[in-house]
């Protein structure tokens, strides 16, 4: 008996020792395999840029985010591109363009020496293909609306007409493209410099379909080629020697990293692992009072407005007096000084200062006395009887800044103290927030709008009655007609006046929105080391001019 147990025990013992040993050896082997596989043996980049969010897509026709645009600008180019210093359109793939006297016909003359990075010429055919693809309903481009100024573009994009040859984009000869517009549109050249107009490689798209950006090699029409794109990791670009302006491309390898949180971005920058941080959301707002004093922090005016939306289809926000009262009771200075702290300008109107050819009229300034009077007139003296309502905002996961929450808390306090009304805060995640906004399923919501191009229309056009970006339920035929008139007006001064009238209705008389402040662009990099990044109102920085000085 004892002998049996003894043998069994030692058998078990040996087996267990064996297992334990095998287990540990396996572990060591597996880990070293993984570690060695994961060490990158690659050349360091010339410039490392922290970009903010991960680009959702680099396909110029379907991308919408600014983070996406900042990468795509390196890979592709359109007939026009933006000047790095002024953000005005300058010749890109086209060496010049003509406009007809009535402003309705644009003729672009392509350079004759254009080639893809993989070889093969870039011709007018490619431009037409790219633009028509963008308008094709099956591409489902979200920015296609910007091209509706072209004749029959809207009809084609919405499927009303199926014949693509009816659209006002045509090739005249291998190096000339002609575009016909519905009416004179002064900012059309700005639109032509946007990613939606970039030239994309037809053969690759026809061969690979949706996943064409993963093709190796990827033909690019811009100053850089795509080395690789690993999600949540980095995008690596290297200089395209066949780009027409390659002589002016200053860096060889650029790494673009998506970083989600401001503190990680700051740490990476301070630690020397990143050279440039150029997303305003990657700045920890609590530290701005210290950071803004440093020479490597650069601020500039930016085409963006932070505002509050009212759902005018819900009581009591259907009464303009109520909306005006709430607008007048906000101490915007306190918000800008204590919460955002980036030196932002408070906003009483919607279109940011510095927009080309436009000065906004004054809106509603801070006036609590008047606010109380209006609220009383509307039937809620001292806030009595005013229903409890909700302020909707989106959460920021991970280390994202909680700026919306903080502003909401301030607004809650202000409206309570000044007007005696009670508001609850409701935080939802991003998709649910967008859904609520679109379905008009909210009372009051926080919002922001970034301009697509340097013109007042990109802001004011949002609040047309049938514009999808309206999301307030506000419909004003007078506003609509003013905007539409302005957009066919050739005379810039008259145009400005029409816009001003419209904006007055928007921010003063009707006030379906309350602008709070204008975004301040902030990016940080050491000007002694990094050159080629200039502050401009679109916060647009072509990659080709960026260089690190040794």
């Amino acid at each position, binding site marked *: 008996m004892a002998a049996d147990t003894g043998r069994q025990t030692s058998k*078990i013992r040996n*087996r*267990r020792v064996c*297992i334990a040993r095998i*287990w540990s050896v396996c*572990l060591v082997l597996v*880990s070293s395999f*993984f*570690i060695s*596989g*994961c*060490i*990158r043996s690659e050349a360091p980049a010339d410039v490392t840029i922290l970009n903010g969010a991960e680009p*959702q*897509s680099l*396909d110029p026709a379907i991308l*919408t985010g600014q983070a996406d645009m900042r990468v795509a600008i390196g890979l592709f180019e359109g007939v026009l591109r933006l000047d790095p210093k002024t953000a005005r359109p300058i010749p890109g793939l086209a060496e010049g363009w003509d406009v007809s006297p009535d402003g309705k016909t644009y003729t672009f003359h392509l350079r004759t020496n254009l080639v893809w990075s993989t070889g093969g010429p870039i011709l007018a055919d490619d431009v037409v293909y790219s633009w028509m693809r963008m308008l094709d*309903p*099956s591409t*489902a*481009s*979200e*920015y296609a*609306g*910007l091209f*509706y100024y072209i004749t029959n573009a*809207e009809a084609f*994009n*919405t*499927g009303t007409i199926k014949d693509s040859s009816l659209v006002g984009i045509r090739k005249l000869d291998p190096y000339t493209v002609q575009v016909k517009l519905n009416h004179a549109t002064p900012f059309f050249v700005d639109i032509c410099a946007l990613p939606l107009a970039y030239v994309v490689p037809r053969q690759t798209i026809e061969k690979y379909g949706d*996943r064409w950006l*993963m093709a190796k090699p990827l033909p690019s029409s811009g100053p850089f080629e795509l080395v690789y*794109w690993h*999600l*949540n*990791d980095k995008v690596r670009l290297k200089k395209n020697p066949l780009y027409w302006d390659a002589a002016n491309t200053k860096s060889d390898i650029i790494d673009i*990293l998506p*970083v*989600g949180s401001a*503190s*990680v971005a700051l*740490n*990476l920058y*301070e*630690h020397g*692992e990143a050279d440039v941080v150029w997303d305003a959301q990657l700045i920890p707002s609590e530290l701005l009072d210290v950071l803004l004093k440093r020479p490597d922090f650069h601020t500039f005016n930016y085409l963006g407005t932070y505002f509050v939306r009212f759902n005018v289809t819900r009581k009591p926000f259907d009464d303009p007096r109520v909306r005006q009262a709430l607008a007048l009771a906000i101490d915007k200075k306190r918000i800008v000084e204590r919460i955002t702290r980036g030196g932002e300008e408070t906003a009483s109107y919607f279109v940011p200062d510095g927009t080309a050819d436009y000065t906004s009229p004054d809106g509603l300034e801070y006036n609590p006395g008047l606010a109380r009077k209006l609220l009383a007139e509307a039937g809620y003296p001292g806030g009595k009887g005013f229903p409890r309502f909700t302020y909707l905002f989106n959460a920021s*996961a*991970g*280390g994202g800044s909680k700026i919306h929450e903080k502003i909401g808390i301030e607004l809650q306090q202000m409206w309570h103290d000044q007007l005696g009304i009670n508001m609850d805060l409701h935080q939802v995640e*991003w*998709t*649910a927030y*967008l*859904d*609520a906004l*679109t379905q008009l399923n909210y009372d009051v919501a926080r919002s922001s709008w970034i301009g697509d191009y340097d013109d007042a229309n990109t802001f004011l056009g949002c609040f047309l009655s049938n*514009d*999808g*970006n309206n*999301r307030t339920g506000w419909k004003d035929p007078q506003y609509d007609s003013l905007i539409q008139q302005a957009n066919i007006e050739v005379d810039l001064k008259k145009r400005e006046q029409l816009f001003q009238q419209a904006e007055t209705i928007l921010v003063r008389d009707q006030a379906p929105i309350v602008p709070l402040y204008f975004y301040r662009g902030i990016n940080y990099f050491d000007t002694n080391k990094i050159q080629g990044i200039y502050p401009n109102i679109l916060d647009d920085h072509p990659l080709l001019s960026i260089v690190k000085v040794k």
Partner: protein
Amino acid sequence: MYFVRRLIFEIPLLLLISALAFTLMHLAPGGPFDSERAPASPEIERNLHAKYHLNDPVWKQYLDYLGNLAHGDFGASLKYRDHSINDIITQALPVSATLGFLAFGFAMGVGLPLGFFTAAKRGRWEDFAGSFLAVLAVCIPALVVAPLLILIFSIKLRLLPVALWETPWHMILPPIALGLFFAGKIARLMREGMLNAMQSEFVVAARAKGIPENRLLLKHAVRIAILPVVSYSGPMLADLLTGSFVIENIFQIPGIGVFFVNSTENRDYTLVVGLSLLYAILLIGLNLVVDLAYTWLDPRVKYE
């Protein structure tokens, strides 16, 4: 034989999980293509939905998904439309796996000796100190440990990188931050296991045979004590391997944990279901391995 049968049983389980994940995702409001800029016309949105079959009834979408799955194609991500889910998983999983294995190694390497030590010195001050440390490790959330480690070692002492995952130096802090919690848990499990083992028949018999105390502990008790740790390590490894959102977010590591959370928030239906399946497969696989290990470690255990 038992294991083959079990594997076959797991397939309907996986199907059920994918169906559940699929349905749950479609219940949430909003869709993958909601964006701050409204599309220029409702037509465009309709086209987009038609392209990805989002207008079909849910059961039909699910069947289509299964059809693709049979070919080994997890589909394309709805949010990152240039990438296929296979690509995403092949890029991100090894990173999370490395992080997970290293954290596992740390947790075992610290937890097992600590548990053993506190059990050996039971009742003395070493036990109290060690147990206290183990419990402390379990009580401090990772979202506090990680920034504190970064503050001390990267910012103040400048010894280690602050984020990202490039060189072996980058691979020191994140596994520690991730594994600390599990180290504490393992230490406690090991201690409990050791205390149980000291009571067990084997050890009592061995002690009666006159084997010295040290050898007793090391050779006999450990083998019995390690069983609960082994059974815990299955699900623990699955959790570790699929990355931790918190650690990957704070250290900006391109692993799969971030995708778990982000894909749900983005309503990226295909990616969510793909990841759920991945997690389930890992969990089932690891549990199977653990059970296998059990039969080797303790021949008394038999499965029918």
